[in-house]
């Protein structure tokens, strides 16, 4: 396949004696929206975090546009610029204003001018309805607003793929929707997206493909319709019957 953005080959990750990933091989294609579902502790987040090498795989390979980025000799920094990531706990930078949160990396690493970075940042903020918060510090933002900020902060680096690690799990229920809407918008605009989520209705609506990970392996994958209406693997059936 030529349009693979990310490919993993037999990805294995151990934390000490605990085997978290036991060999995961899959591909994410350009423009594809993939949701990863599965029970807690099954390895979903670890898998996602291996994709930008926040976790170093114990064995196996991660390819980004056909470059092996799990190779130890590679400078991962430049590839991370192309892989945006949004975290469960937002991880906005508390010591910087909303605007500076967004422009920090573009100015330092994309080497664009401050004026240009700020102009771009304001447009991004407008697109998520935060333009009036530009000069506030994150402390003044609600959880939903922080998460929207962290999404546009990642987008300001012009990534080729966006990774979402349970982006709504730490939000109050009334704020989940505003964040999901933005992710859905982004996904529909053609951004290659990988989401680890517990929001099944959302996953079903926006995804091109669902990957079910449990016990460190992909138990089943397929289109949302297939996974949610006629799952085959017993563990998928058990998982879905518990939550749907």
């Amino acid at each position, binding site marked *: 396949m030529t349009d693979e953005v990310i490919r993993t080959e037999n990805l294995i990750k151990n934390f000490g004696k605990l085997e978290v990933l036991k060999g995961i091989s899959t591909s994410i294609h350009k423009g594809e929206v993939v949701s990863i579902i599965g029970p807690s502790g099954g390895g979903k987040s670890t898998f996602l975090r291996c994709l*930008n090498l*926040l976790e170093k795989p114990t064995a196996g390979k991660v390819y980004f546009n056909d470059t092996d980025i799990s190779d130890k000799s590679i400078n991962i*920094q*430049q*590839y*991370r*610029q*192309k*892989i*945006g*990531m949004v*975290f469960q*706990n937002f*991880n*906005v*930078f*508390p*010591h*910087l*204003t909303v605007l500076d949160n967004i422009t*920090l*990396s573009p100015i*330092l*690493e994309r080497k664009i001018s401050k004026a240009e970075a700020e102009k771009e940042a304001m447009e991004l903020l407008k697109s998520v309805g935060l333009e009036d918060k530009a000069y506030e*510090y*994150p*402390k003044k933002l609600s959880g939903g607003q922080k998460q929207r900020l*962290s999404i546009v*902060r*990642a987008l300001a*680096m012009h990534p080729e793929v966006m990774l979402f690690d349970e982006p709504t799990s730490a939000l109050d229920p009334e704020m989940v929707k505003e964040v999901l809407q933005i992710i859905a918008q982004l996904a529909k605009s053609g951004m290659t997206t990988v989401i680890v989520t517990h929001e099944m209705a959302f996953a079903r609506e926006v995804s091109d493909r669902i990957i079910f990970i449990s016990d460190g392996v992909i138990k089943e994958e397929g289109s949302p319709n297939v996974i949610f209406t006629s799952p085959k693997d017993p563990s998928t059936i058990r998982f879905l019957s518990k939550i749907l």
Partner: protein
Amino acid sequence: MSIVTVFAGTILGIIIALMRMSRNKLIRIISDVYVEVIRGLPALVQLYFFWLLFPKMLPFEISDTTSIVVAFIVNASAYISEIIRAGIEAVDIGQWEAARSLGLSEANVFLKVIFPQTIKNILPALCNEFISTIKGTSLASVFFINELTTGYKTVASATFLALESLCIAGAIYLMLNVALSKLVKILERKLKESD
């Protein structure tokens, strides 16, 4: 002397703190031993060591003052490095991850994201350490090098006005430390803007 010690001690302290958190085991062990040895010895004993050893170890001439200042810097750096290390470790791991995920270089991750948050957390503890460093420089009078308490001794023995000159020396220490703590207060307030 105080100011040089505080500045150089802080810079050395940052380096030692980073070494203690290094992935390289050897660097970690060296810096651990450094901190333990220096914290474990009384300051006066260290000053004697440097005063006696430094001129012998080095191929070039070195004044007593330089030896003692270096000793103070080394001494301060060990304590400061521990404060800084605690401050760095108190920053949420998610901040490192988010900064790295944006493709920032490791230097920028530390300088632009982690360190500013560290400073804010440790400012009160750091101020304490600066004050005790400044007061500690009075120990240099033991070696009769040019320093405030030495000055007091000189003046006192020349004029026989022991109490008066002691009061003056004390007032100068106090002024220096109050000024420092005011300065830190201002800095603290500035950093609190984001709260």
